[in-house]
């Protein structure tokens, strides 16, 4: 199947569990398709050459750089973006709540990418410990936090997701009630 350089082509995929489509040129990056084509601006654009990690999304369950992915290349794929993390509108997911408790963000520019890396990784390897999660977070640049609170939040979220620590999650429920 060949696509012309100058024309826009329809791409269909699954986005956060629902069917989605948009029209893109072959050269359109997945970041721009998500942000401009679908209006989902939670995925941030930092360096645009794969170094900073701000644009990380999950493609078929694995974390990947949206800025190094062509939109035409995700035809039929299963995508997850930061917009898919909230269990219901206005409520934070487990990872997001842990980030909030630990002050794991300041300006927030890098946060969506880090959340998507951790979300995808913990689904694949729920038992991941500090060394493994630190390496995953190593694929992202954060200029605010110094990373320590991000690692702490990731470890706590991992424990909650494994069902080992419910205390913090319950506190969060109360705080939001």
């Amino acid at each position, binding site marked *: 199947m060949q696509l012309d350089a100058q024309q826009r082509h329809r791409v269909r995929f699954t986005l956060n569990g629902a069917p989605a489509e948009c029209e893109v040129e072959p050269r359109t990056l997945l970041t721009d398709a998500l942000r401009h084509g679908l209006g989902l601006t939670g995925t941030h654009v930092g360096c645009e*050459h794969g170094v900073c990690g701000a644009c990380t999304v999950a493609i078929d369950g694995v974390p990947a750089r949206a800025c190094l992915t062509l939109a035409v290349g995700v035809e039929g794929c299963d995508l997850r973006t930061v917009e898919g993390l909230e269990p219901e509108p206005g409520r934070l997911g487990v990872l997001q709540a842990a980030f909030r408790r630990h002050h794991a963000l300041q300006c927030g520019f890098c946060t969506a990418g880090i959340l998507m890396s951790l979300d995808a990784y913990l689904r694949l390897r729920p038992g991941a410990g500090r060394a493994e999660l630190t390496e995953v977070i190593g694929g992202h640049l954060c200029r605010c936090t110094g990373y320590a609170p991000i690692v702490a939040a990731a470890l706590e979220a991992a424990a909650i997701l494994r069902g080992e620590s419910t205390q913090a999650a319950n506190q969060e429920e109360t705080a939001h009630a």
Partner: protein
Amino acid sequence: MKPAPFGYLRAASLDEALEALGRHGAEARIVAGGQSLLPMLNMRLTKPAMLIDVMRIEALREPVPERGALVIPAGVRQAILLDRPGLADDLPLLAAALPWVGHVQTRARGTLCGSVAHADPSAEIPLCLVALEGEVRLRSRKRRRSVRAEDFFTGMMVTERGDDELIEAIAYPTRAAGTGYAFAEVGRRHGDFAIVACAAVVDARRMRLAVGGVADRPTARDFPLLDGSALDDALNAFAWELGAGEDLHATARYRRDLVRQLGRRVLDQARQDSLRCS
């Protein structure tokens, strides 16, 4: 930071990809995982008229064990190979080096053949291919040929591949009895390109050291079994012959010193490993 316009072909078969490559020649580029090519496109360092996507070709998906080698076709992602059961037994050098290739998020998409095609002189995957004396299997509409890794890399991001040729697969010789392997790297941060990377292969007859990040291509040298100051002298001569340059990341002198230090370390480790496995 957006690519210049290009046409896009999602090849369903190897024949379709080869036919398009034959037709477009130098105007076309193969895209697999895109983790080396997309940065080049985004920065407009390359402006192909046509991209040929080979990731939907079923025949290129799975690594194939052959006698004495593991053959890795163009569609095999780095993360998939790293998770392959038994990799550390079959290809201990590659198993040690792959975690140094980019990050979890880039290995999830990037392929081994893509890294070989890109031919960055500091990249780990080409370095291991040269260290292990592997081969690159090229294919065009008209012919197939195998090129020794050492002959394939001909300069800074320049290879032996013709404009109408696709890297169909690369082949890494698997572990031999009585042979030891070791890998070490120094970079600014884990996941960055290496300032110097060293891979060693040692058996009962010789010691082989391959160095990345110093010359314009991954470069290997065979030594007889040396130790003590004779080994230091040989490594010093090799470090000078590599013709280290200066850049933002390191001075030439620092690079030479890393070749001597890391080289010694990996050769010693590989020798110990060879004695353990004999």
